[in-house]
């Protein structure tokens, strides 16, 4: 058996399943020459006339264009440009009904011809030296798209990389009426052959097969003459059968090969080009005439002169029709394309495009409108007519039921919409329309599914992105927090270092001269007090002044304050101790015990890490308290001096642990100073009429100072300022009370105040320890009670208070400070408020409130008896 190629060479042709033989009606136009017509008034050139994407618009409204000038640029492979069919002006770029069954408006260039037919410069391609890419580019730039009907860009087909066995030139033109290719072959067979040569040069096929139906004898003859002498070029006359012009059907007829479902001819080594395309390629390559016109069959019995026309692309259909003597009938139909596969035009303004091969203006008798659709009688004629072996009847049911799954299972996508089934249907069912609707539905569903897929992906991506951003934010916040903490720690460290530097500076700067100066100042103070007392006992303001100035001085020198603080605490204790020692011994004991207690708490809180030291300090404190008690009992002035000396010692022993535990030397220096001061105070006390007074006076600044080291140790400047204010207030009060009377009650109340202050303040220092704070609060309460009871008992039993006058004077003295007392009362919770740990703020506040209440009571109690 001969091979396929041998069979083809031998001139064998095959057949495909089904097919129909509708009346051809080609003789109306096939014998007539191709006519041309006068330039239309306006051309409507759609921006896209092929399958693919539109090119980039190159012209704007008002531009003058030359014949053959590109109006769009082909930027990508699937784009081909459109060209100006004649010279003229672009008067508009707008929407115009499209040459599509839908006639949906599409963007068009509106060209007003100037009638000059001015060509742009043309350059024919030198075929001897041009390479494949140059030719392909020329084909693309000429805007050539398949002219058989589909409009597939020709350069893609012609540039196929795969090996090509057969190049098939489709000149079948199987649809009735259409003779465009027929007359083209009759008149331009040489140009067509040139085009085919270019295509063969590009594709290098084994053979070229030109398929022509045998009802075009003139065309067959012309082509046979034109290809004479060409090796492996075969003109094949095919017996008429619709739809032989279908790409796959033609392949089957000429080569007996079937293109698999869903594949393209190139996959089996075959390229099919329309004869019109070959003509256009030849013109483009050899003459540089882009695709600006084509042959269109204008036919139908409504026309007096049906004929083929060289139609410029963009010519409105009605211009062509009127050139052919169109006499419209009532409810005239216009068909673009053939009667089998074309579509009715809803508008006669629709322009001719690259794929328009025929315009039919039939009369009603010629192409009667399809009658009403009847029910399917299951005759099976459609199945016999189907050229692709489908089951049209089944497809109809499934189309009606919109059963897409079944439609796809029955290969609806392989339907070429030839209309053979509808043609043979005795029930006049427009089967193809059903299939088209179903196909569009399936496409839409697939598009939706694809879109849903994309939407899902985008949604997921967004969710992921939001999650990631959230995490990143959290991460950043964490980092920032860590940074802030680090900064805070650094700041604290720096502040501690600064504080240490300050204390160091203070101690080093405390020269002998300063000590002397301080001593002098104290002496002056004492003298001032004495003078004030001697001058007028009632004049409180006068006497207050020096202290104020002293306070000012203390303010001026903040560094001294630190040292003074150390002294202060000791002195306060001494004052307490000495003050009570003079009064009843029992009272002295209790009151002395109070500071002792306060002291035991203090080291614990401020240097909580050193429990042992604290315990030692406590022991010392207890011992000292006992000693103070004992000295109180002794009641001699010399013993008192000893106690006075002991008290500061007590303060000093505690302090190294609490405030400047790291610097033993400094503490020792401070202690020495303190002792010296104490001695001085003692001396001055002895010199003065009442020693207690001096003690209380010294206690005043001391009181203020007790607050200060604590405040300076804390990093809050505000707190320090507030504390200073408290200190001043306290100092004033202490001064006032001390000046007013030398009674023990006074001393007791004054002593109670620092006790309170001391007990509350440690809370602020040991802020992080809630338990300790609670204990301290409890102690504070206890102390306040004790102080109260002490003052009460004093008021009731104290023999020194037997005279009612002093208390009265005392109350007078106390009264003025009451407004000054208020800052104290307000200030007392301050350290608590400054308490950094917020969680035991409540506890501290309660303790403060209790303390305040107790303090008030203590202040009022001595007044009450009066």
């Amino acid at each position, binding site marked *: 058996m001969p091979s396929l190629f041998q069979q083809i060479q031998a001139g064998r042709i095959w057949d495909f399943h089904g097919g129909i033989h509708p009346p051809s009606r080609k003789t109306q136009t096939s014998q007539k020459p191709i006519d041309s017509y006068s330039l239309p008034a306006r051309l409507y050139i759609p921006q896209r006339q092929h399958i693919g994407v539109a090119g980039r618009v190159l012209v704007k409204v008002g531009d003058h264009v030359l014949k053959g000038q590109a109006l769009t640029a082909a930027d990508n492979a699937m784009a081909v440009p459109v060209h100006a069919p004649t010279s003229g002006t672009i008067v508009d770029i707008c929407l115009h009904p*499209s040459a*599509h*069954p*839908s006639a*949906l408006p*599409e963007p068009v260039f509106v060209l007003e011809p100037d009638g000059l037919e001015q060509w742009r410069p043309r350059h024919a391609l030198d075929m001897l030296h041009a390479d494949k890419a140059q030719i392909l580019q020329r084909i693309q730039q000429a805007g050539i798209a398949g002219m058989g009907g589909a409009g597939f860009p020709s350069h893609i087909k012609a540039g196929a990389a795969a090996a090509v066995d057969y190049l098939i030139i489709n000149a079948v033109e199987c649809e009735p009426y259409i003779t465009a290719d027929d007359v083209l072959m009759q008149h331009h067979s040489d140009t067509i052959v040139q085009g085919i040569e270019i295509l063969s040069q590009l594709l290098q096929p084994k053979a070229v097969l030109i398929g022509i139906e045998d009802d075009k004898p003139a065309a067959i003859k012309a082509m046979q003459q034109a290809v004479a002498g060409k090796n492996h070029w075969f003109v094949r006359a095919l017996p008429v059968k619709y739809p032989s012009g279908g790409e796959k059907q033609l392949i089957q007829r000429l080569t007996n090969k079937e293109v698999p479902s869903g594949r393209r001819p190139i996959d089996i080594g075959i390229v099919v080009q329309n004869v019109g395309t070959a003509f256009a390629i030849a013109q483009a390559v050899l003459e540089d005439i882009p695709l600006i016109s084509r042959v269109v069959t204008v036919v139908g019995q409504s026309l007096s002169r049906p004929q083929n026309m060289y139609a410029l692309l963009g010519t409105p259909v*009605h211009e062509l*029709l009127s050139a052919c003597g*169109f006499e*419209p009938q009532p*409810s*005239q*139909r*216009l068909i673009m394309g053939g009667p089998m596969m074309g*579509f*009715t*035009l*809803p*508008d*006669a303004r629709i322009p001719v495009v690259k794929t328009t091969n025929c315009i039919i203006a039939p009369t009603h008798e010629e192409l009667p*409108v*399809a009658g009403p659709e009847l029910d399917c009688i299951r005759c099976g004629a459609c199945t016999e007519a189907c050229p692709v072996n489908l089951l049209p009847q089944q497809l109809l049911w499934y189309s009606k039921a919109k059963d897409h799954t079944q439609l796809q299972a029955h290969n609806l996508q392989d339907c070429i919409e030839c209309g053979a089934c509808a043609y043979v249907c005795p029930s006049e069912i*427009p089967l193809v*329309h*059903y299939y*088209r*609707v179903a196909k*569009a*539905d399936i*496409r*839409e*569903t697939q*598009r*939706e599914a694809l*879109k*849903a*897929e*994309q*939407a*899902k992906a*985008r*949604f997921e*991506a*967004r969710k992921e*992105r939001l999650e990631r951003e959230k995490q990143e934010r959290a991460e950043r916040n964490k980092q920032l927090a860590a940074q802030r903490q680090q900064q805070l720690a650094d700041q604290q460290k720096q502040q501690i270092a600064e504080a240490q530097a300050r204390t160091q500076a203070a101690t080093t700067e405390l020269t002998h001269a300063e000590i002397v100066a301080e001593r002098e100042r104290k002496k002056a103070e004492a003298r001032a007090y004495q003078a004030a007392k001697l001058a007028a006992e009632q004049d409180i303001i006068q006497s207050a002044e020096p202290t104020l100035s002293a306070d000012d001085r203390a303010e001026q020198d903040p560094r001294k304050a630190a040292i003074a603080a150390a002294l202060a605490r000791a002195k306060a204790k001494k004052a307490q101790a000495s003050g009570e020692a003079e009064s009843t011994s029992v009272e002295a004991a209790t009151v002395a015990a109070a500071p002792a207690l306060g002291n035991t708490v203090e080291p614990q809180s401020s240097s909580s890490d050193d429990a042992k030291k604290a315990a030692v300090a406590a022991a010392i404190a207890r011992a000292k308290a006992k000693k103070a008690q004992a000295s109180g009992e002794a009641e001699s002035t010399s013993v008192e001096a000893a106690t006075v000396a002991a008290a500061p010692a007590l303060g000093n022993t505690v302090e190294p642990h609490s405030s400047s535990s790291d610097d033993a030397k400094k503490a020792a220096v401070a202690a020495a100073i303190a002792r010296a001061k104490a001695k001085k105070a003692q001396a001055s006390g002895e010199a003065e009429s009442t020693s207690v007074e001096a003690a209380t006076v010294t206690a005043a600044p001391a009181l203020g100072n007790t607050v200060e080291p604590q405040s300076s140790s804390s990093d809050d400047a505000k707190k320090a300022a507030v504390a200073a204010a408290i200190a001043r207030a306290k100092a004033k009060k202490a001064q006032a009370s001390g000046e007013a009377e030398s009674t023990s009650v006074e001393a007791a109340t004054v002593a109670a105040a620092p006790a309170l202050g001391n007990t509350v303040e440690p809370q602020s220092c040991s802020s992080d320890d809630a338990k300790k704070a609670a204990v301290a609060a409890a102690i504070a309460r206890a102390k306040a009670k004790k102080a109260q009871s002490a003052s009460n008992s004093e008021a009731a039993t104290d023999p020194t208070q037997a005279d009612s006058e002093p208390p009265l004077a005392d109350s007078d003295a106390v009264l003025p400070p009451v407004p000054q007392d208020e800052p104290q009362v307000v200030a007392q919770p301050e350290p608590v408020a400054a308490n950094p740990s917020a969680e035991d703020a409540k506890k501290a506040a309660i303790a403060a409130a209790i303390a305040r209440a107790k303090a008030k009571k203590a202040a009022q109690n001595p007044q009450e008896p009066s």
Partner: protein
Amino acid sequence: MITALWALGALALVFGAILGYAAIRFKVEADPLVDQIDDILPQTQCGQCGYPGCRPYAEAIAGGDIITKCPPGGEATIKKLADLMGVSLDSLDQTQNKQEKRVAYIREEDCIGCTKCIQACPVDAIVGASKQMHTILSNECTGCDLCVEPCPVNCIEMRPVQTTAERWKWDLQSIPVHVVEVK
């Protein structure tokens, strides 16, 4: 007799063991129901069903919720869901018809660039930046309406999707005769 029992028992054990092993070894990972439902849903993420997105609704359907809560999916989705879930279509309220497909459109001259719609868009189909005009990628828009509400200047409207020649559906009613007036 005893021998026969033993033999049968041994055989039962052997085959049981083989079957048990095969059940584990060759287990077919069936597409979980939720995934199947999620594939049917239109993925507009519009939340009109009352769930925050299509997947949560798919989970809800798998958990027994009714299948007619998806307006964007329309009849086709309900039908597919009914098939999948084995629910009779007759028993369902089929009043919900598929609406015309719409996409959001920002009137750009009114946009103040607040980015609120961008935050609302479930598929990131809105492009814009703070104090810059926004616009909608109409190809990515699912028509969920979620951006309309947050707009403080009401510059977003839902417009029907433009029919193009590619998307055009042959209309059986429109194909027959057209009267063409020719001058």
